[in-house]
């Protein structure tokens, strides 16, 4: 199947520094892609460029049209972006925050449509945040806030979801909950790209893995071809042991090299 969002040899510079170097990315509907790499590899910069938030050299195409040709709202209806950090500046209710996911769909003066309401309800349910939908978001724990942030991105119902470290502050159970949500979102037809640090979860959930180091995607493909002991040692500088977990070969880093 052809890619809904594809980047051909894109490079991104911040100031004078080249952060991403000739990266090639293809995101397909129905597929959960995972971007991994050490700190400072350029993962966030790449994902922001794919979201259209940073200017990039090279070609980024959304639905086979150049990304820069979309006006911001048209782009926002197609690409949902979940930034790192789960920032909420005002103590708005969880429901109001999640409803922001409908922002690109709405007419500024119209009240929410039935579709808006269903999308918000579904996003709350998928992330198990319905029970505190009326609470101020600033009063929640870190893990709850992370799920609310994800719910906000899901509520857009965009065909592309770009999530930057969506499980970073979550406990073990909620990491799995969120990974399942991302996989379900892909199964329902979206193209999902998530930045992860957890090699084991990447191996268990990814349909496609992109391994990034020093601004370049050093290798990409299926989990079994990318997440090998050799590659992991080269890129992360750790020795990893491969174990069988849930039917997948999962790397378990145990020693810094």
């Amino acid at each position: 199947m052809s890619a809904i969002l594809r980047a051909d040899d894109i490079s991104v510079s911040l100031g004078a520094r080249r952060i991403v170097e000739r990266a090639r990315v293809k995101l397909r509907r129905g597929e959960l892609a995972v971007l991994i790499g050490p700190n400072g590899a350029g993962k966030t910069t790449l994902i922001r460029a794919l979201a259209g938030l940073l200017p990039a050299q090279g070609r980024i195409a959304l639905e086979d049209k150049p990304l820069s040709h979309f006006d911001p709202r048209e782009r926002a209806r197609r690409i949902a972006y979940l930034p790192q950090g789960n920032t909420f500046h005002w103590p708005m209710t969880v429901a109001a925050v999640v409803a922001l996911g409908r922002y690109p769909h709405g007419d500024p003066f119209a009240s929410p449509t039935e579709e808006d309401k269903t999308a918000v309800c579904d996003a709350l349910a998928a992330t198990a945040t319905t029970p505190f939908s009326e609470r101020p978001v600033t009063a929640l724990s870190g893990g709850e806030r992370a799920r609310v942030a994800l719910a906000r991105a899901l509520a857009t119902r965009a065909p592309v979801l770009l999530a930057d470290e969506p499980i970073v502050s979550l406990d073990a159970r909620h990491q799995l909950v969120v990974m399942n949500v991302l996989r379900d979102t892909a199964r329902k037809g979206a193209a999902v790209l998530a930045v992860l640090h957890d090699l084991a979860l990447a191996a268990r959930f990814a349909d496609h893995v992109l391994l990034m180091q020093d601004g370049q995607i050093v290798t990409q493909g299926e989990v079994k071809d990318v997440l090998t002991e050799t590659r992991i040692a080269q890129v992360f500088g750790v020795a990893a042991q491969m174990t069988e977990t849930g039917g997948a070969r999962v790397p378990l880093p145990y020693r810094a090299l």
Partner: protein
Amino acid sequence: MVGPAGLSPRAAIAALFSGDGAAGIVVRDIRLPRTLLAALIGATLGLSGAALQGLLRNPLAEPALFGAPQAAAAAASFVIAFGFVPATSLAAPIAGIAGALLSVGGLVVVAGARASLTVILLAGLALASFAGAATALILNVAPNPFIALEVAFWLLGSLEDRSIEHLLIAAPFLVASWILLAMTARAFRALTLGEDAAASLGVDLVRTRLLVVTGVALGVGAAVAVAGSIGFIGLVAPHLVRRHVGSDPARVMLPAALAGTALLLAADIAVRSVPSANELKVGVVTALIGVPVFLTMIFGEKRLEESAA
């Protein structure tokens, strides 16, 4: 429509509609423009405060903390002190708007996209001090000491003796500022997620910043040009309404404008009712009440941050 001349409410209302006699002059030519100006300027200040708070995602933002009224005052004093233009010409509001535009625009540039509250407050303090020094310099070297004195009093912020001409000069700018600021309300809601997420939702950050800076400059510049600097309404009005309408920064805007109107009308009625030889300046009153409220809010914020940590 209250004032030192002893008129019963019924007499005042009768005079407003008939315009007859001394009571007619008091109500129609003295009290009516003053009340309308207070209402319009109060709304503008409340709305400007709510908009700056929405843009910077901080409940402590307010035009005066960014030196907007101070810069407007400096520019307007320059025109009045050196240009010998009467205070009712268009030169003063236009100079005021230019001054406010420079200061708010300068602050947004200096403080940048992701500035912390500390940077914003320090940059605002620097701009306000600079504008204050510029005003002092203008008064210092003003060619005519009487004009200098007049300007100094006008700077304190007052609605005393404002005519219908003042109202007609300021009103178009104030209304234009409302329109610009109202256009940005929805973007503030998305900005609660931070600038990156807001941009990913389709918010045009450059346009939003430009609208807020221009809107605040138009409103505050014109308000300062006719009424001097009246501080802290923009800080207190959104704060008061947030308790009742919640923290949604778009939903705060209209109530903040109404609360600004109520606050400035109340302050102006208070200065008119306090018996004294020289009428108290309303800008002095709002600052005397506003600064303690501001400090209380800072301590409230600090507690919140500590409890969140």
